[in-house]
C-alpha cells in the first residue's frame, strides 16, 4: 500500500476515532479513580494542580499531553503503557466472555434455582395426580444432578 493510500485511511480514521480516543482515555482514568475511591481533589492534591484542571482533563474532550497522561497515572499509582500492535489484531480483552462480579454469583444461582422450582411447581400443579413437591425435587435433580432443598 502506498503512503498516499495510508494517508487517506489515516485521515478517515481520524475523523471517526479521535473524539472516542480522547474520551476513552479519560473514562479509563475515571474508572480507576472510582475503584480506588479517589476524587478529583485527591488527584489535584497529589499533582499540585487545581481540581478544576483535573476535572477538565477528565471530561474526555481534551488532547492530553504525554506528560499529563503519565502524571495522572502516577497520581493513581499506576503505570501508563503505550503499545503498538498490528491494526488487524484483536485486543485480548475484546469480546471476552462476560464474568460477573463474584458477589453477584450466589444471588444469581439462588434466583435461577427459585425460578426453576417455581416453574416446575406450577406445571406440576396442572397435573392433578402428581405430588408437586416430589415432582419438583425429581425435576430439579434431573437437571442439576444435585439435591435441591424445597420449602
Amino acid at each position: 500500500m502506498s503512503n498516499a493510500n495510508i494517508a487517506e485511511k489515516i485521515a478517515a480514521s481520524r475523523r471517526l476515532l479521535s473524539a472516542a480516543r480522547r474520551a476513552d482515555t479519560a473514562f479509563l482514568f475515571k474508572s480507576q479513580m472510582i475503584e480506588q475511591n479517589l476524587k478529583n481533589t485527591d488527584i489535584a492534591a497529589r499533582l499540585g494542580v487545581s481540581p478544576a484542571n483535573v476535572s477538565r482533563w477528565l471530561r474526555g474532550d481534551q488532547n492530553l499531553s504525554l506528560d499529563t497522561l503519565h502524571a495522572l497515572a502516577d497520581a493513581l499509582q499506576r503505570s501508563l503503557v503505550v503499545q503498538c500492535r498490528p491494526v488487524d489484531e484483536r485486543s485480548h480483552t475484546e469480546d471476552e466472555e462476560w464474568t460477573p462480579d463474584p458477589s453477584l454469583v450466589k444471588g444469581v444461582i439462588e434466583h435461577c434455582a427459585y425460578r426453576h422450582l417455581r416453574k416446575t411447581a406450577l406445571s406440576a400443579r396442572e397435573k392433578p395426580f402428581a405430588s408437586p413437591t416430589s415432582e419438583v425435587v425429581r425435576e430439579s435433580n434431573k437437571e442439576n444432578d444435585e439435591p435441591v432443598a424445597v420449602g
Partner: protein
Amino acid sequence: MPTVKVVTLRALLTAAGFSPEQISSALANGLGGSGVWRLCTPVGEDDDLNGSKLFKSIKKYVDDDEKRSNFLVMLTAIARAATQQDYGAVLSNSVVTAKPAYKFNYRNKQHTVLELKHGKKDRIYFYPEKFCGLPCIVLLLAHHKKDQTTPKEVTTYCETTMKAHLASISDVSIT
C-alpha cells in the same frame, strides 16, 4: 417471553458501518472487556441482532462520519461505565451526558428511559435493569434528533418494551 441478547461493541460498530480495521483500532485499549453491567438489547423470537430495533435504528440514523464519531464516543462511554457498579459516576462531568429522556408510570411506579448524549442531536436510549439477578444495560434505540423533543416513535417503543419486561421480569431470558 421477552428476550434480551448480549451485544458486543464489535457488532454495534459493524452495524454502524465501521470497517474491521477501524473497530480494532477503536477497541485496542481494552475497551469491550468484562464489566459489572452487561450491554444487551431486546431481540425477537428469531434471536437475530440484525432484526432488532436497535440495530435497525443504528443502520437508519448512524449514517455519516460525524454521527459515527458521536456514536462511537457514546459507546465508549457506556462500555467504560459498565465496568463499574456505579456507572453514572464514570459519566458524570464528562463529554457524554446520561440523563432522563422520558418518564412513564406503570403499576404505581415511575420508570425512566435514559439517554446518552454526545453532539447536539445524536442519542442512544437505554435503561438499566437486573434480569435473573444479572445487571444489564438495555440499549433500546439509536437516534438522530431533528428537534429538542424526544420523538413519539422513540417514546412509544421504549415504553412498550420496558413495560413488556417489567410485566414479567423473572421470565425475561438472556441469550
